[in-house]
């Protein structure tokens, strides 16, 4: 059961990150086309309309989508100076505390992002040039934020398991 959860969560985090990366690469290509177009204005070409807005919304989507992978791989910067001094058990407890805190943060981020999205939706706020509604960009970001909540919930379980299960059973 745990193995299935682990594989599933890992896959989900990976999937989100790759999706974010593909969007990022898409933005790179779009930006290069836009620059080329801008340089060739005399030839009747032009920049991609609203390129800045696309970069902002797209990069936001990517970063939201990157967050779960970073949490799943324990990639966040921390100070490991005294790690050895705490001993095995204390370190496991600290991992659990950190993962619970991250879960709370992820939950609050997703929840507030949803409310922020509703604000934008109700006011029909749009971007300056493309006139697309900003709530859509929030909604895109919400995908990553939701995955982040799921993945950080799993990480709490993972740390709990590390405390209560003997190492010999962990590999099984």
């Amino acid at each position: 059961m745990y193995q299935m959860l682990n594989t599933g969560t890992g896959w989900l985090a990976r999937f989100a990150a790759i999706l974010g990366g593909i969007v990022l690469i898409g933005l790179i290509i779009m930006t290069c086309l836009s620059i080329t177009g801008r340089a060739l204005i005399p030839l009747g070409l032009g920049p991609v309309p609203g390129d800045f807005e696309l970069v902002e919304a797209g990069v936001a989507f990517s970063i939201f989508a990157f967050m779960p992978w970073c949490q799943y791989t324990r990639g966040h910067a921390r100070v490991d100076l005294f790690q050895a001094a705490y001993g095995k058990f204390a370190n496991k407890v600290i991992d659990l505390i950190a993962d619970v805190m991250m879960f709370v943060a992820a939950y609050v981020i997703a929840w507030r992002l949803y409310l922020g999205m509703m604000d934008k939706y109700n006011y029909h706020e749009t971007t300056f040039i493309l006139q697309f509604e900003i709530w859509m960009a929030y909604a895109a970001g919400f995908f990553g934020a939701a995955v982040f909540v799921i993945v950080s919930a799993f990480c709490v379980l993972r740390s709990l398991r590390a405390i209560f299960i003997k190492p010999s059973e962990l590999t099984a």
Partner: protein
Amino acid sequence: MSNLEIGLWSFPVLLILIFIRIPIGLAMMAVGAGGTYIVFGSTMMTMGQMKHLVYGTFSNYSLSIVPLFLLMGQFATLSGMSKGLFKAAESWLGHLKGGVAMSAIGACAGFGAICGSSLATAATMGQVALPELRRYGYSGPLATGTLAAGGTLGILIPPSVILVIYAILTEQNIAKLFVAAFIPGILAAIGYMLVIAIYVRVVPGSGDALEPQPYSERFKALIAVWPVILIFLAVVGGIYSGIFTPTEAAAVGAAGTGLVALISGGLNWQKVVNSILTTANSTGMIFLIVLGAGMFNSFLALTQLPQTSAQWVLEQGFSPWFVLFCVLLLYLIFGCVMDSLSMVLLTVPIFFPIMTSLDFGMGTEEFALWFGIIVLIVVEVGLITPPVGMNLFVINTMARDIPISQTFRGTAPFVLADIVRVAILAMFPSITLALVWLIY
């Protein structure tokens, strides 16, 4: 408890959380939110802020450079350009005593021009240069010390992720900061080469010279690195001349390195996925810290601590240079245990108002550029100082047979070179600002 006291107390609490290994960004978020709650007596402030803060931070146009530069660095590692750079440097420097190590520094500097991350530079150049250094009989401490120190050139020589963050925090022009970083970056490379020249003479048998290569070979090797030169000129030249924004430049750079990687056959689907996942990891890490620092700093602003401490320092009548010395010393000490980005995000909002209120005999903008470059260098020293210098560990994992204590020893002279350079740049601000004056 007054608001100011709450602000002061937040520091020990934050440090405790950080030192018990809570992720730094998360610790800053928690203390920021908790502190705001204590000041206001309700969570309304934080909860209201959170509605748009996260999306606002992630969609910030200037910050969007960060993932783009990171992906660019990943593609650069796969492009095989590191090999060409090392060969070119070796053909010019290899015949000097300690020349292979100097070539590694030269190649790191070249790689730093297309990569904005120290760890990626150390890792990439380590893969190319470590086997060569060992093959020519360079000693373990010198080989690993050289590469760990050379890695810091990745961030000293523009493009540089930390400068982007500094520019946003202090509302400075990113292009001007990149210009200002250029001469100090070159000085760093020269300084490291001098260290090697002295090292091989003081410690006999630590590194030898190769046969000199004919000039025809040298120029051939130099011409072979044209993609690096082209990408650097496109990215940095484009930013300097204002043809495109720094974010666009990062996109152009990522496209350029990606294209070179694709053509050289270094890029297949699996490698693209790996590049994305590494980028995702670093991006997630950086943005959690940016988010946490944003919350922590807005809490500090509520307590008026930054303004009050700036006022306090001013009233004490300290010499500006003494204050600068203390600030730099603090960075060096904290750099030993904290990562550079967290340090910049955490301290610049506090130190910058203090420093700008002091009179260093230059304009506000000039001061901001100069201070930024010096801070960049001192926080980067943290990457090569024990106990938690990340570059040391990156190199250590590549050279398992060399104990880390030897790497510490080999890096010490380079740290000394860094400190000397900081002192020189601090005493003569015109070194940093000359190119800015010339171009703007």
